[in-house]
């Protein structure tokens, strides 16, 4: 009798296994640029998601206007957009185009409206400028624990796209202004904060963040992020001008499973020994 009882403490080396979330946060971490990277120009300029659209460097024949206007390459590696002030150059506009390495096309303002006033540039006028697609991220990656905070974040940032506006060479800068989250359980939220990873906030996993959300019921959910961008345009080295209206782009949806966390006693590390007691 007693021997049977005393055999129980053999399992005294029971190990608590909590599902490790290390892997999910590691995935979300990006390499950090150090001080020197900003001095030698080796650090990528824009913090864009892996799902961003790579626009090709080819261009259509300028002047076609409308939605068939060319899209130009956008170098995430640090393109310079500095205005040109070299007086030796005949035309500031030409020099500006040289810097962009694109064929320069004279810019003409939009046609006057019936009142003889120049109408504002609207979002539909810049339809040929394709902003980079935003991407949604979540921690833990593709699963959540009912009752605990799941951290959602968007990876997008302000970026400049070259193209043709009214037959002329122009740039459009897209700036994310709102992030609309549809959590797939009937709840939505709109924030102006893109959110960031737990690691970047330097807080513990499952801590609340400005963009975290708590699921109440287990199940499979599809989470959709829509990012609203404001746009500005400029031509030939002029200053940035507002574009009327906003543009909303939906990121590729995330699918994830919410479940209850259960703490179990196991004999050993279940990853090292998946067939061990309790695993």
């Amino acid at each position: 009798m007693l021997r049977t009882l005393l055999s129980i403490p053999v399992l005294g080396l029971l190990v608590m296994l909590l599902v490790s979330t290390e892997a999910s946060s590691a995935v979300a971490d990006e390499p950090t640029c150090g001080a020197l990277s900003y001095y030698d120009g080796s650090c990528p300029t824009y913090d864009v998601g892996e799902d961003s659209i790579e626009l090709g460097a080819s261009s259509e024949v300028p002047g076609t206007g409308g939605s068939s206007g060319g899209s130009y390459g956008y170098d995430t590696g640090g393109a310079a957009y500095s205005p040109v002030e070299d007086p030796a150059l005949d035309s500031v506009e030409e020099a500006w185009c040289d810097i962009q390495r694109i064929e320069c096309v004279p810019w003409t303002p939009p046609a006057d409206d019936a009142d003889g006033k120049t109408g504002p540039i609207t979002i539909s006028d810049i339809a040929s400028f394709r902003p980079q697609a935003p991407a949604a991220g979540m921690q833990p990656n593709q699963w959540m624990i009912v009752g605990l905070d799941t951290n959602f974040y968007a990876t997008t940032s302000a970026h400049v796209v070259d193209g043709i506006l009214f037959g002329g060479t122009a740039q459009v800068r897209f700036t994310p202004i709102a992030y609309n989250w549809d959590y797939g359980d009937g709840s939505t939220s709109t924030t102006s904060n893109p959110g960031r990873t737990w690691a970047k906030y330097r807080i513990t996993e499952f801590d609340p963040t400005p963009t975290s959300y708590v699921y109440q019921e287990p199940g499979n959910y599809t989470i959709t992020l829509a990012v609203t961008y404001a746009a500005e345009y400029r031509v030939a080295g002029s200053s940035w001008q507002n574009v009327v209206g906003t543009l909303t782009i939906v990121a590729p949806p995330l699918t994830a499973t919410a479940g209850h966390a259960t703490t179990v006693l196991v004999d050993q590390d279940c990853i090292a020994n998946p067939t061990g007691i309790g695993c």
Partner: protein
Amino acid sequence: MRQPNLLRLSIGALLLASLSGCVPSDATTPPAPTSTFVAPYATDEEALAAAEEAYAEYTRVVGEILQDGGANPTRLESVAVGAFLDASVDGLEEFAAKGGQASGDVRNNAFELQRYSPRGSTAEVITVYLCSNVSGLDLTDQDGNSLVSDDRPDESTMQVTFDFSVERQLLLVSDVEVWSAGEC
């Protein structure tokens, strides 16, 4: 017969008690509360001035390390912190390994406060925008080959974030990002 049963029960209870004592684990321990922290800058203006001063000191220390060919990059610990510090030290060690040499300096201006969060956490207390001009800085390896990227913009708007060090009562650079390359 009764005695072994009693013994069994008590050992069982003891075991249960000892097992339940195992429940807390590091993974679920919440971080120490830091809600009592309040940054010492009374106004946004004071916060911005402190950030300017801290970034000037950071720039000076990086410049000093570069002038020394990347020697003793851990000197940066006096002005930076966290993953950014680690990445910076790594980069400077590589610079030293190449026999790096630096000439000229970096100029910063147009500081603008993005955010000041005086309460709660010592992390990310202040974030500022600033204009960083690196056109005067030249970096070469031991053979005189340039270590500067061909498309390095002369100046860029940077977003710089500072943590507050309670021990030293000063701001440390914890994150630097290019906000707008080639534009200030």
